[in-house]
């Protein structure tokens, strides 16, 4: 793939890797498909003692562009659209920079296909329930019906808006058809509101848990509760303003500015910046080190059991 004409902003022409729409492209598409199927067939023939190495190799090659792009010297102020590399090292740097987008695209495509496994699983489980008339199979019918309705109306709505609405008429609701209304009702009217309701239910459980289970039984629990209480008091502007005004008045009457340090929001800001932030940073740092170690082990195939 010759990237230099693209980098110079020239028109990209046909090449071996890309064809204009037509019989030639469709022929090559079949070739590409056969190549993929052939690769899968070849992989299925790999002996069992080599399988781990195949998976580890794929993992390593997938991560290599990002590691190489980070470690390889790349000109800092290069404009990859209009400039040309001056030597071999810069050529590799330019190539790696250009590779970021296709690598990201391939990730997205594979992830898109992977999501289908989840849908297939979900549909299979509920269809089995319906077929065997297991407990609550009626609810499975409801789930599958909503699944089909949302997918059907959603795809049709997308099709209409993408291919049949050149003038943008569907931006005005008066021009909507039944499909557009159905998609809006299912998405905006039902799905979004239920999504919000699901998340908000946790607040009720928090209240109940705080009443029944949040007990000051140890030093750690006391410290945690004190920290949480100070933060929650600071969230209440009315309270902090009233208390702050009282402190201001006291400081004014006694001519003692040191008292200003006892305002809730002053103390809460101090606690947040001096103790809460470093504590959270320490937690995230510990987790981050673990993620780095795990990432390196996975990439290099050192993790026993890892992907395999």
């Amino acid at each position, binding site marked *: 793939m010759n990237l230099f004409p693209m980098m110079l902003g020239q028109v990209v022409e046909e090449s071996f890797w890309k064809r204009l729409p037509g019989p030639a492209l469709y022929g090559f598409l079949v070739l590409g498909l056969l190549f993929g199927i052939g690769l899968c067939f070849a992989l299925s023939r790999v002996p069992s003692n080599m399988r781990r190495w195949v998976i580890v190799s794929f993992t390593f090659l997938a991560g290599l562009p990002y590691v190489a792009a980070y470690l390889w010297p790349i000109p800092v102020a290069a*404009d*990859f659209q209009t400039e040309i590399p001056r030597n071999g090292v810069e050529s590799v740097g330019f190539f790696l*920079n250009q590779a*970021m987008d296709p690598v990201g695209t391939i990730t997205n495509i594979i992830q898109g296909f992977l999501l289908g496994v989840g849908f297939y699983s979900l549909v299979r489980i509920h269809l089995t329930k319906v077929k065997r008339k297991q407990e609550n199979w009626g609810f499975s019918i409801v789930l599958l019906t909503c699944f089909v309705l949302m997918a059907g109306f959603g795809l049709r709505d997308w099709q209409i808006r993408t291919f049949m609405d050149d003038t943008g008429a569907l931006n005005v609701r008066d021009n909507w058809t039944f499909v557009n209304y159905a998609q809006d009702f299912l998405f*905006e009217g039902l799905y979004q509101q239920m999504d919000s309701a699901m998340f908000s239910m946790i607040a009720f459980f928090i*209240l109940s848990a705080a009443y029944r289970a949040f007990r000051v039984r140890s030093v750690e629990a006391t410290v945690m509760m004190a920290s949480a209480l100070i933060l*929650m008091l600071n969230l209440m502007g009315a309270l902090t303003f009233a208390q702050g005004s009282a402190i201001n008045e006291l400081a004014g009457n006694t001519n003692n500015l040191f008292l200003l340090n006892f305002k809730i929001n002053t103390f809460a*800001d101090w606690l*947040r910046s001096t103790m809460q*932030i470093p504590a959270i940073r320490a937690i995230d740092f510990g987790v981050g080190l673990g993620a780095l170690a795990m990432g390196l082990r996975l990439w290099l195939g050192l993790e026993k059991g890892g992907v395999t």
Partner: protein
Amino acid sequence: MTIWEKMQKIDRRILYGILVVCVCIGLFFPSTIRTDPDPSSKSFYAAVQKLPKGSTIIVQTDWTNSTRGESLGHFENLMRLLMNGEHKFVFYSAADPAAPQVARTVLARIVAERKSQGLREYKVGEDYVDLGFFPNAEATNTSMGANLKAAWAGRKSKTPSGTEIDIFKTPVLANVNRIEDCQMMIVITASQSIDIAVQRLAQKIDITALVTGVVGPTVLPFYQSDQIKGVAVGLKGVYDIEYLMEYGIDDVKIEGQPYATAGKEGPVPKTEIGTRFSRGRQYYGTLHVALTLLILAVVMGNVAMFAARRRKGEKV
């Protein structure tokens, strides 16, 4: 059974009912509450207000109606701030496929609101561009940092006349070749997508954030280390921004005291035009009620526990 023991056995459904009643009552009495905005909210407001007029802003909107209580207010305030500053912006999502549609709906409402107030109407393809959804935030942000034009290649924008053109031919992105050509990136999120953006782009562009309360504590370390220039956290953050839009920083004063005192960012004027107080003001008073209820629940639960323990100790 003593009253304390009865209190410890109270049915949780009664607690739920009390919460619902308190919240519903609070919603009917929205009020402007004096507060001291958080330093991070002041930094956010200052950072956006100090942008040169007509700047190009990247808005990564990664929220959906599941966090509407906070993120909707954040997004509405941000749109008002950007439009008041005559800034051009692109918006997209890298976390949730439903997010762009949610943002479009809100944006349309803010545009209509400004039109009803006699303010200039923002137009797609001229003042802002809708990029849609990019799956895989890691790959998207990495691509944007490496080669913005390639990362957004092929995306088209509708114009006011209804036609479609390449986004880099619109007035919004005509002078943008790299991410460094944009003045700021603002991330509105309820997830770790802010971490992903900071990891990959903080060295190339100034980033600010509007996050929910769940994510807030983990984002504040980025603010402390100056990796992000400002962050408004949660519902308090929504109210802080509206408060600052109304009163500015060290701007509007009452009896010699500014409504919001200046910190390291210095004085910043209030917003003169358009809506300032809206959703944050509507919800903030009710938040007081809910938090008071929770604090009372914790305190009473512990008092009941100590009283029961003391009674057991006396019996023995």
